[in-house]
């Protein structure tokens, strides 16, 4: 039997299984463990014979037995005063298998995703828990992605599960209103997960890139489960359009290449088309939000053959709406840069100087460097790039800024 195919089937079912079990047994850790064991058993058994006709039912049955066995041995071992692992009486647990077919259509992964991205959890914890429970990544894989030791990630996951327990967050199915209320937290977690991976450029951090792929995969899943939600579509579109430029944004030596110098033939056209279509459809639904606006801006960049032929007035207009929606000063910085493309570098510099709360921010200083360079003020531009290099927290960006400064002085 083909192991890759088995793994594909297992990966697809894992989050749904955890979701189904959590609704029954409430204990995230016990359910994750049980599903892991069921997956191991399946991979062993199936490669010897074949994938069963109802892989989900097969896995659920095995995993459910494991939880019940675990609950039994736990409860008999622990004193009565201690917290009992499962809040569901043992006899109810036995009734599980029969009504599973009914519950199958109810999307368990979706509830699990909302549980893992709960606003009670810190963003770092929510991302880790989502990768573990919904994404099916191992603790070791998540640890590598975050560049922390496995034991540290194990602790972070335990604390996250404890928080879920303490806050009394259950895996109960949510109604539409509850989902709508909690959706922004879920989108934010997926967005941060994507950025965490996308920001990685160094060769040593290929594992981090997996975070971006995983965020993209989960957002696709979310969009499939919650169709016609404009901000879900906006987020997925933003990820697709951003990710489409991945091959062009890093050079051979791992150096960052800015948008205006990227080889646009390296952009993934298929992904750009998908992202652009998605954002058009989202806008047509009428409820414009921050992710849609960012996706629309990314889409305008993606459709342009060059920096010069980019529709900058339209981008300026979108940034103005985005500033009103988010109030984020970094949006004002991007607006100033786009403004400079329409009104010229001097007008852009005036906008930058007016952003009082960002004067010490390396991005603003670097943007000032770019505009000074366009004005031909090479020495001042180089000084700005050097200052920005001393303030960034990323080695890739520091190298980029230092090289930029050096190239202005060399000629």
């Amino acid at each position, binding site marked *: 039997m083909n192991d890759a195919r088995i793994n594909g089937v297992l990966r697809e079912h894992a989050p749904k299984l955890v979701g189904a079990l959590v609704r029954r047994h409430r204990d995230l850790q016990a359910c994750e463990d049980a599903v892991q064991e069921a997956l191991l058993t399946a991979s062993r058994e199936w490669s010897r014979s074949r994938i069963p006709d109802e892989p989900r039912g097969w896995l659920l049955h095995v995993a459910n037995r494991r939880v019940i066995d675990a609950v039994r041995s736990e409860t008999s071992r622990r004193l009565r005063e201690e917290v009992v692992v499962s809040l569901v009486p043992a006899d109810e647990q036995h009734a599980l298998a029969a009504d599973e077919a009914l519950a199958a259509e109810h999307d368990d992964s979706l509830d699990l995703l909302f549980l893992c991205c709960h606003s009670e959890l810190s963003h770092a914890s929510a991302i880790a828990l989502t990768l573990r429970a919904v994404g099916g990544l191992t603790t070791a894989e998540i640890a590598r992605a975050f560049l922390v030791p496995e*034991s540290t990630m194990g602790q972070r996951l335990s604390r996250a599960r404890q928080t879920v327990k303490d806050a009394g967050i259950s895996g109960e199915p949510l109604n539409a209103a509850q989902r709508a209320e909690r959706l922004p937290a879920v989108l934010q977690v997926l967005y941060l997960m994507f950025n965490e991976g996308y920001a990685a450029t*160094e*060769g*040593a951090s290929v594992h981090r890139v997996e975070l971006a792929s995983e965020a993209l995969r989960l957002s696709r899943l979310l969009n499939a489960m919650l169709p016609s939600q404009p901000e879900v579509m906006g987020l997925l579109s933003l990820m697709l359009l951003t990710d489409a430029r991945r091959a062009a944004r890093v050079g051979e*030596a*791992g*150096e960052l290449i800015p948008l205006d110098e990227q080889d646009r033939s390296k952009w993934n056209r298929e992904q750009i088309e998908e992202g652009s279509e998605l954002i058009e459809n989202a806008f047509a639904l009428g409820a414009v939000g921050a992710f849609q606006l960012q996706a629309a801006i990314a889409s305008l960049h993606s459709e342009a053959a060059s920096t010069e032929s980019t529709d900058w007035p339209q981008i300026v207009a979108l940034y103005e709406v985005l500033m009103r929606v988010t109030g984020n000063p970094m949006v004002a910085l991007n607006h100033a840069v786009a403004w400079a493309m329409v009104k010229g570098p001097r007008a852009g510099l005036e906008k930058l100087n007016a952003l009082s709360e960002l004067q010490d921010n390396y991005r603003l200083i670097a943007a000032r460097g770019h505009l000074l360079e366009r004005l031909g003020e090479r020495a001042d531009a180089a000084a700005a790039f*050097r200052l920005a*290099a*001393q*303030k*960034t*927290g990323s*080695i890739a960006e520091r*190298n980029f800024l*230092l*090289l930029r*400064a*050096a*190239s202005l*002085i*060399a000629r």
Partner: protein
Amino acid sequence: MRREQSLNPNPERQIDMKFMLAMNHRGNGAPQILSWAKDDLKGHINYMKQFATKLGKQGELVAAEGLAFPNEAKLVKANPDGTPNTDGVFPETKEFLVGYWIVEVETVKRAYEIAAEASMAPGQQGKPLHLDIEVRQVMSAPPPVE
């Protein structure tokens, strides 16, 4: 998995020795790298990248981090109430840590060899910098508490 050091049959050849190779920058003025020409800068960056990649491929690299330039650094001391006081200024002649590698090697000799390779990183006109690399053994952790 934790190895039993006491059962090591050959004490000459210790297993799991970890060393920190620390690269220091002298003085707290502007880092000299800021004034280099583009090609020199490129040569230095590429050398350091290839160095880390090679250590990784050889299975000797445990961790490597570069630190932000020291002009953004703060000296922190607790106030009487335990809150952080960040008014501290670094003394003038202080050496600054700019980055480090942690390597896992079989002998201390090997750690010195790796340090020498880091020391040879190219500077202006591609000439080796002969940087000072401080080699310190990383002490093994106490057994984990179950």
